[in-house]
């Protein structure tokens, strides 16, 4: 079943991005269990497509331009996360690039645990 749903997720895309109308059409044909798995895989896919750039203060324009250049064609959001103190934290797919003070202090703390 997993392979079938995986193929359906691939079919739900247009030009590499998830297409809402296709998703609705496919969802109508699925049973309860299959729908649950389809939803979970779509969520994962969506998560992979999105790039989240967290900054302690509102992201400056220059940073936004640079990030858009690196991740061209992908959905990017720039939420504020004051707990980072300074720096930024970029999450894309299953990677986190942590260039924040909070991350640095966490690593110092771990070295004492």
């Amino acid at each position, binding site marked *: 079943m997993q392979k079938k749903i995986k193929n359906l997720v691939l079919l739900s895309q247009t030009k590499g991005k998830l297409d809402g109308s296709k998703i609705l059409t496919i969802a109508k044909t699925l049973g309860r269990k299959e729908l649950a798995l389809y939803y*979970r*895989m779509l969520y994962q896919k969506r998560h992979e497509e999105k790039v989240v750039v967290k900054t302690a203060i509102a992201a400056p324009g220059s940073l936004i331009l640079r990030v858009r250049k690196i991740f061209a064609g992908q959905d990017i959001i720039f939420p504020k996360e004051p707990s980072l103190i300074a*720096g930024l934290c970029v999450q894309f*797919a*299953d*990677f*986190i690039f942590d*260039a924040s003070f909070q991350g640095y202090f966490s690593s110092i703390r771990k070295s*004492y645990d």
Partner: protein
Amino acid sequence: MTKSTDEILIQLQKKLNAFGFEPGLTNVGTVEQMGDGVVTVSGLSKVAMGEMVEFEDGSTGFAFNLDEDYVSVILLSTKTAITSGSQARKTGNFLSIGAAEAFLGRVVSPLGEPLDGKPGIKAAKMMPLERIAPGVVLRKSVNTPLFTGIKSIDSMIPIGRGQRELIIGDRSTGKTSIALDAIINQKVARGSRRKQVLCIYVAIGQKQGNVAQIVDKLGEKGALSYTIIVAAGASDGAALQYIAPFAGCAIAEYFLQKGQDVLIVYDDLTKHSFAYRQLSLVLKRPAGREAYPGDIFYLHSRLLERAVCLNEKNGGGSITALPIVETQAADVSAYIPTNIISITDGQIYLESDLFNAGIRPAINAGISVSRVGGAAQTPIMRKIAGPLRLDLAQYRELAAFAQFGSDLDKATQTRLDRGARITEVLKQTNYAPMRQAHQVAIIWAVTNGFLDDIAIDDVSRFEIEFIEYLENVEKKLIDKIDKEEKLTDEIAKDLEKEVIKFKKRFKI
């Protein structure tokens, strides 16, 4: 480990002064579901098999199944606050345990945490739980005896340092007692030139009460100072029971690297197999014979192959393994027992019938074997124990005719009498290992017929008093037997003289 506040502040100050910002790239995943001690995580595309994974709440686990879209992580922490949707990150570390001299005398969990209520232990070195066994070139053949102090074993089923000798039998046949006797016998007297053999006892799936009793017994006999106990109890979950023997082996390898000899007891591998089966079934791995996963043999072979005797160029240390397997209704042809029999260098087979008949240790010398054999015995013991096995084998063959006592010819009757006395001599109380010189003396006496005229009921008393006599009156002979490599004519004459002298004093 606790550090003083001042120390921490000084180190923090140093780090801040040398501030160099290095951003980190971490591979993360999202918890999809959790149950039965297994967490299914999506993402974690770069995690390796057996790599440690950390969760948001601080819990840890290790990656055990790498599927196309998911990673199954076995949880090591029992109390967790992991929820669906929380984050998991790979740590880059593999499962390892801290090892140090300070572990001696302590009871620890397979993660290195103290279980004996004493303070935490600072690890000198982190040892990986999974490690490739040393290759052929690094090894040498097993040629140094590991004395267990049990007459039947040291004479007929000798164990050498670096050997794997399986102890197999039904429940309550004395398997653990044999292992504990072997540990207690490793005690080296102060001032002795003998090299101390360190001991590690791995308790897998046992009752906490049993482990406590073992700790008490070892403490009472003064064996705890050179023993480490790694315990994963019955309530500890399959993950800890699965890694317990590997943790014990990792600690043993720490001492091996320092050139020391280590004895490790795995009690028992049957419960270890159960734990591994449980994990594999929860992970939906294909089930094979008796519902065990297909790699159950590899589980034990890679563990037991790490028992080694290294050559001098590589330190000269050794790890001797005594795995214990519990059979059901004496079935040694079951799956797990046959697997481990084929891996080990011999087995000590314990029978319930012998145990119930009062023959303790209940070792069936006929089917017990040590594939290292005489190479792991001193020449003197090898010479003396030679006729022992044959005499016992003949006795067993003739035992069926014992009921026809008066109808037997003299030679047969003599063999039966000799066999009965040998059986009596080989009996031994538990937690009372015997010195090699004492074993040599009494076995020599019985195989040369000096006990043939002693009543069977008096044989054990004769043995005790004879050994006492030798220790108190003729200590020189005992010391000579210890020092001499071979059974010289002089020693034989002295032994004969002392036995005859003692028999005159012995009151029947």
